[in-house]
């Protein structure tokens, strides 16, 4: 059982994902505002962060948050981040192609919406196993 923090503003989508991951015995906490994520992570370190990129107030807020997590306290830097977003690798909305370069953006993996739940579960399991190693 793992503790997963899901940062996403679309509750209809998030609740469905939480149901699927909950059925796999994971505890999923939903946060809709990126600003609240780091304080929450400091209170309790998650095993995985599932992160959207576009938020209503900041079209590339997910990118910014991923970098913040990476530059925060050492215990949080190692938390794997799975980007789960409608933004795809070639979508030029305020950021350029190099923005999704692995070296620049500290995310462990990337999944594009709409997502197949079997693929999502496989990714989550893989990332959690890697995280334990």
């Amino acid at each position, binding site marked *: 059982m793992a503790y997963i923090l899901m940062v996403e503003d*679309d509750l*209809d*989508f998030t609740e*469905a*994902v939480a*149901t*699927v991951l909950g*059925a796999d015995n994971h505890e999923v906490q939903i946060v809709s505002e990126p600003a609240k994520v780091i304080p929450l992570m400091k209170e309790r370190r998650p095993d995985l962060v599932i992160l959207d990129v576009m938020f209503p107030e900041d079209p590339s807020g997910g990118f910014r948050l991923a970098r913040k997590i990476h530059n925060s306290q050492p215990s949080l830097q190692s938390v794997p981040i799975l980007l789960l977003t*409608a*933004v*795809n*690798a*070639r*979508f*030029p*909305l305020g950021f*350029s*192609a*190099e923005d999704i370069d692995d070296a620049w953006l500290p995310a462990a993996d990337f999944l594009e*919406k*709409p*997502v*197949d*739940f079997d693929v999502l579960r496989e990714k989550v399991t893989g990332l959690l196993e890697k995280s334990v190693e």
Partner: protein
Amino acid sequence: MLLDSLAGERMENGPQCDPVSYDVPLNGDESGPLDPAASEELARELLEANALWFCRLRWIVVATFLALGGVVDIPAVRNWTGLRPLSAWLFLTAGVLTLANLMFHPSLVQRTSCRLSRRRVELNLWGQILVDLTVLTAAIHFVGAGIVWLPFVYLFHIILACIFFRSSLSLGVTFCAAGLYLGLRLAEAYGLVESQSVFDGVSGFGAPDPCVFARGINVAGTVLVWFVAWGLVSHLARLVRSGERRLVETNAQLRRAQQERTEHMLRTTHELKSPFAAISANAQLLLKGYCGDLTPKARGVIEKIAVRCERLAHEIQEMLQLANLNSAAQAPPPDKTLALDAALRRAAAQFEPLFRERELKLDLSVEPVQVRGAPGHLQMLIQNLLSNAAAYSKPGGRVGVACGLTPDGEVFLSVTDEGIGIPAAKLPLIFDAHYRTDEAVRLNPYSSGLGLAILKEAAQCLRARIQVQSAPGKGTTFRVYFPAVPVDVRWNGPDVA
């Protein structure tokens, strides 16, 4: 444009009767909005062509002067025409004009600087005009300033300056011509330089020497005609230029509108993805049993929702791909050396389940070849070729996929199917977004009709050209020709396998 099929291309087991070949025009070949930079470049090229034309014309004058210089020294010719010996100044003038051509010929100037800027082309033309006016004035002096038709040769330069330059500059050329001609006539009138004539007395083409007043009227009238000619031609040139400016502005507006439309489509399509992701996620919840058992009827309804979700997901993906390919806001894609054979093997493996489902046999015949471009563009191109072949093939058919080198050193990729084929008249339309032939709609009613539009844009990004060969009812071959990878980047291994 319909072309005969290329001889020597492989079509084993492919269409056997009357296949028609079509070369897909690249976007640059089509009449779309011209961007301001391209318009500026066009104006520069026109000026450069004019500078070149000036030089060519001067070579003709040089040849004429040299020929005249040779002929007029023949006594019989001199006796008949009444000309004085004039070979010396004819040869001198030809020499000066030759020197000018060597100085100003654009291709000679270009050897030192790769390409002339518009400013340098304008300076080049100015230099040529000034040299010509000076040489012309000297020629008029030697031939005889009183010869009535000679000063009108200045008009050529004035009119050409009106066409090449804006009004103020062409007025400058007119004043230069007037200054040089009036200076010559005054210098001759006041005895500062001795009047010359190629003719003995008033014989030949010369006119009787009139009185001073008549000469003054003659000179003033000549110069007045130049200024009238300048006024008329520069007015016409202004009208043409303002029309040209309006065209450039309209082009720029069209480009902006096209770009905005693409960006809007990109955003709208993207905005569709989020609510759609929620619908798809909740449909999956129900179907996969996360909300308990469903009645058969409810399951049937949800399955329909899921199927439509899958189709819509595919369509949104295609719309985004096309909008991305059209978008100028896109960051420049990476230019890498890509192994085409490896990319084809990978795609073939990915498409294997679909081909099996459609009972299609995939023949893969690849040679190790490389192309340059963005991996994403190559992937889009191959995926659309294969999914198109799968969608429009008949069950049990064969799909041939090959890549290699043409005898010309181009890299080719071909995908041949034994499907429904495309009527010749419809070949030029199939790359338009959302266009589908009646036969295609009957066979595959749910396709978005964007696949081939994406294929064309992706090929454009890869600097590749597409050729389609098809025979209705027999099958279609799409061939993509990539430019040869330069030797200096064709190293021991590609950037991307």
